[in-house]
């Protein structure tokens, strides 16, 4: 009655090998039921070199030692992201992977902070975040489990070389029995009954069939779109960037435990610290900047002509259709502003493993998968749009557009509720929760018109004193953390 399905993954890029590594971890000695059809030079291009805190759980579930992962992928630790030039050309904020402060008398810290700001008091929000302060000092330590400790209030992600990351997971999966197939995909046979894919036809004439197909072929969606015609929902009216160029520069002496995203006239630029080099990327909207101007923004020191990568922010109408599940850019694309691309693949394969069908896939599992996947990617979409639509920048046509564009109803409601009284409603998906939204709202200088009425139970003098104590405790804790580079060296990752 129940047997493990045979699975073919199409695409040997990072997404394909994330999926294969996770399946290998769960299939154990049945990992031979999983094959990856690699596409050679046509592999989808991966952009981001960052991974969210959820990666830690993903590695653990896949049976991968985290320290080994850090050593092999030349990774550094990520405590958050610095956003420069986003609220206004000359201002910046930090989005940390941590909570802010602690509740004061049953009132969330953010409500107390709103009251402080209203009274012209209180420090910037980041001063109440352990990781924001630690990041600014270049410090890093792992959090502790004891929830009474200030060192339990945060998490961390990684900056890791995308090619090494892919190679590392590929080796891991192959060592556990996953099969890599080098023959190119030439055609896809579709079942006449509408049940999805019938077989893959490979170069050399091999015909490959499986119970379940995972499309990791990138934005083209060789199975989910080109074979099954699922359709794509275009979000470029909300997120107009559609071009990216990536390059490397020498590593920095002091390794920052955070990445930097710098806004420019028609998009933004990233800088991600790794142990052997710095990853850079330029993201633009072609509606507001043509490619020759884009090339002019690159550093002069670049030797070769870099490839321009085109994308469309949006999602597949269904991520699971028939016997085909799409992951990565095949399922949907969101620019790597908040490092969510790897996360979405990890979360997608984990969800698939929970709903894994025995034998032929059933409609109810697909419905459940799509329900959860759509909620998740739309929540992240809204979170990304917030970085653009709440900016005060009016110094270019691009920023003028962002300031006036229509918003998804879900985001418009969320912003209204926040502006009204600082409420951040619980949101679907696990990628970003209250502290993340708070960091960006506050960072973009969006503040509520009023704070919670019960914050008036606490006098402003007392509130200042207690917030001051929290801030001092956080600074002291951050100062006691080791230097980020030292921490890496100590674990053998120099």
């Amino acid at each position, binding site marked *: 009655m*129940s047997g493990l399905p045979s699975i073919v993954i199409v695409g040997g890029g990072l997404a394909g090998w994330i999926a294969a590594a996770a399946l290998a971890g769960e299939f154990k000695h049945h990992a031979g039921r999983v094959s990856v059809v690699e596409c050679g030079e046509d592999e989808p291009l991966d952009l981001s070199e960052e991974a969210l805190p959820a990666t830690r759980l993903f590695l653990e579930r896949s049976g991968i030692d985290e320290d080994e992962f850090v050593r092999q992928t030349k990774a550094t630790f990520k405590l958050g992201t610095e956003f420069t030039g986003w609220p206004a050309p000359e201002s910046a904020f930090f989005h940390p992977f941590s909570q802010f402060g602690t509740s004061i008398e049953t009132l969330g810290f953010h409500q107390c902070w709103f009251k402080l700001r209203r009274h012209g008091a209180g420090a910037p929000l980041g001063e109440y975040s352990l990781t924001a302060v630690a990041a600014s000092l270049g410090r890093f330590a792992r959090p502790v489990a004891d929830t009474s400790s200030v060192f339990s209030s945060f998490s961390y992600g990684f900056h890791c070389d995308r090619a090494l990351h892919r190679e590392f997971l590929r080796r891991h999966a192959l060592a556990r029995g996953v099969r890599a197939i080098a023959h190119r995909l030439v055609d896809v046979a579709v079942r006449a009954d509408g049940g999805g894919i019938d077989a893959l036809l490979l170069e050399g004439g091999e015909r490959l069939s499986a119970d379940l197909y995972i499309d990791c072929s990138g934005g083209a969606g060789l199975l989910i779109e080109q074979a099954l015609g699922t359709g794509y929902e275009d979000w470029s009216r909300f997120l107009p960037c559609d071009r990216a160029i990536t390059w490397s520069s020498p590593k920095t002496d002091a390794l920052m435990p955070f990445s930097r995203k710098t806004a420019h006239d028609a998009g933004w630029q990233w800088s991600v610290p790794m142990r052997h080099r710095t990853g850079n990327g330029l993201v633009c909207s072609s509606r507001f900047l043509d490619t020759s101007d884009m090339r002019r923004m690159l550093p002069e020191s670049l030797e070769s002509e870099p490839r321009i990568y085109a994308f469309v922010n949006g999602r597949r109408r269904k991520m699971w259709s028939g016997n085909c599940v799409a992951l990565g850019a095949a399922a949907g694309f969101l620019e790597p502003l908040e490092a969510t691309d790897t996360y979405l693949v990890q979360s997608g394969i984990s969800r698939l493993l929970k709903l894994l069908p025995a034998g032929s896939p059933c409609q109810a599992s697909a*419905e459940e998968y799509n329900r959860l996947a759509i909620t998740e990617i739309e929540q992240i979409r809204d979170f990304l749009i917030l970085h653009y639509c709440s900016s005060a920048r009016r110094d270019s046509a691009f920023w003028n557009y962002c300031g006036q564009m229509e918003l998804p109803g879900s985001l418009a409601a969320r912003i209204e509720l926040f502006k009204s009284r600082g409420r951040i409603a619980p949101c679907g998906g696990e990628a970003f929760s209250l502290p993340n939204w708070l960091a960006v709202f506050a960072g973009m200088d969006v503040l509520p018109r009023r704070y919670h009425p019960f914050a008036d*139970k606490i006098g402003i003098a007392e509130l200042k004193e207690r917030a001051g104590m929290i801030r001092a405790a956080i600074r002291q804790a951050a100062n006691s953390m080791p230097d980020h580079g030292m921490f890496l060296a100590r674990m053998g990752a120099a």
Partner: protein
Amino acid sequence: MTAQGPIRSIVIVGGGTAGWMAASALTRVSNGALESIRLIESPEIGTVGVGEATIPPMQLFNRFLGLDENEFVRKTQATFKLGIQFRDWARLGHTYIHPFGRYGADLDGRPFHQCWLRARALGDQTDIGEYALAAVAAMQGKFARPSADPRALLSGMSYAFHFDASLYARFLSEYARARGVVRLERKIVDVELRGEDGFIDALVLDDGERVRADFYIDCSGFRGLLIGQALKVGFEDWSHWLPCDRAAAVPCASVQDITPYTRSTARKAGWQWRIPLQHRIGNGYVYCSEFISDDEAAATLLANLDGEALAEPRFLRFKAGRRRAFWEKNCVALGLAGGFMEPLESTSIHLVQTALSKLQTLFPDRGFDPLDMAEFNRLSIYEYERIRDFIVLHYCATERDDSALWNYCRTMTIPDTLRHKIELFRSGGHVAVYDDELFILSNWLAVLTGQFVRPQSYDPLTGVLDAERLKGHLAQQRAAIRACVDGLASQRDFIARNCRAEPPV
């Protein structure tokens, strides 16, 4: 007109459980930020619930108020509750328990219930209840407070209470009045609305006094004196999914040891509750008037009591559904004024509690921002609908075909959200849980399996675990639970040692 500034005064209408819970919680959260909280209760209106059953989050409410739990138990004739026993729901003669707390442990990262489903496919006949500490303890009449150490087996159990709702209202009334809440024992004869915006302006009492406040809380019960009669907020009728519309209630004498669980027995035209208290047992027959007369319902009820009836049956009328808005203008409706779902899963008190928690988060000022109301209503409606689905599951997933009610329920159209859950479970034993849903995996699992929703297959990753090892894992857990329950005291002894109530006067 837009008023400015903080809310200074609140009037609560209705002094039942909902009213006094609201008064107690508001005095606790506002902590002096409000100038006055008054509660108007008519001496003529009694509390509806006789014996009230609850679910585990009620512990949090008591803790939030700073109540001593043993004192609460003593003062309200309460007993402990480890779950609900359902008799004759899936089919006549079949019984299952919906226990509070966890089922067994996962194996190699595979969910426990998938291990259990696979064991059944291998021929194992053990009931899922044998893997829940609360279910095994409940059947043996045992009780202990769970362990706080998550590694201990005893941490896997949770509990709630059965109590006398009138005594609880009195208990909270003392609490609230000691903290400054003013009680007006009067009748409301009229509700005056402001001409310009239709907000509640004043309540006119039977002696002509006009009571005014910035904010009104309607706890007046089914009739919804403020939210319905004055503000004309309509009602969304769910009786096509939950057709029961009446209840007959009667207390009876206890003749044996009090059981640490609620019992719900399905009957021809509805179901009967049995809620054991320290001094007596609360009973009631919830029925659909289309299929049975009041007299016949009362006769069925009286014929199925543990001991002698201690009063004449009282009759209640209701309709399943909810207000279209729970918060309208300057009035929030709590308890039965906001909506009604039959007490099959003991959610009434909980819905008051969570409404108060939402109100704490979204507490307004005199500007009454429509966004706050919209958010409160959105969250409340979502919560009601998720609980509704859980209750409907008990009715629609049945094999019973012995009466008109069960024939209707077995074949009725159900909400899409519930249909999706049933289909997903049926296909591979997966349980869909929506965001922030009150009832979580273990709850749904208890009722889905109890009502014979049978998965066609189980998780294939569980399928690759070694069969003997999997069986051993299950056997070991059954044995550990039995051994743990053997070491527990009976609920009778636990109560005698910790929280014995005085006999009623």
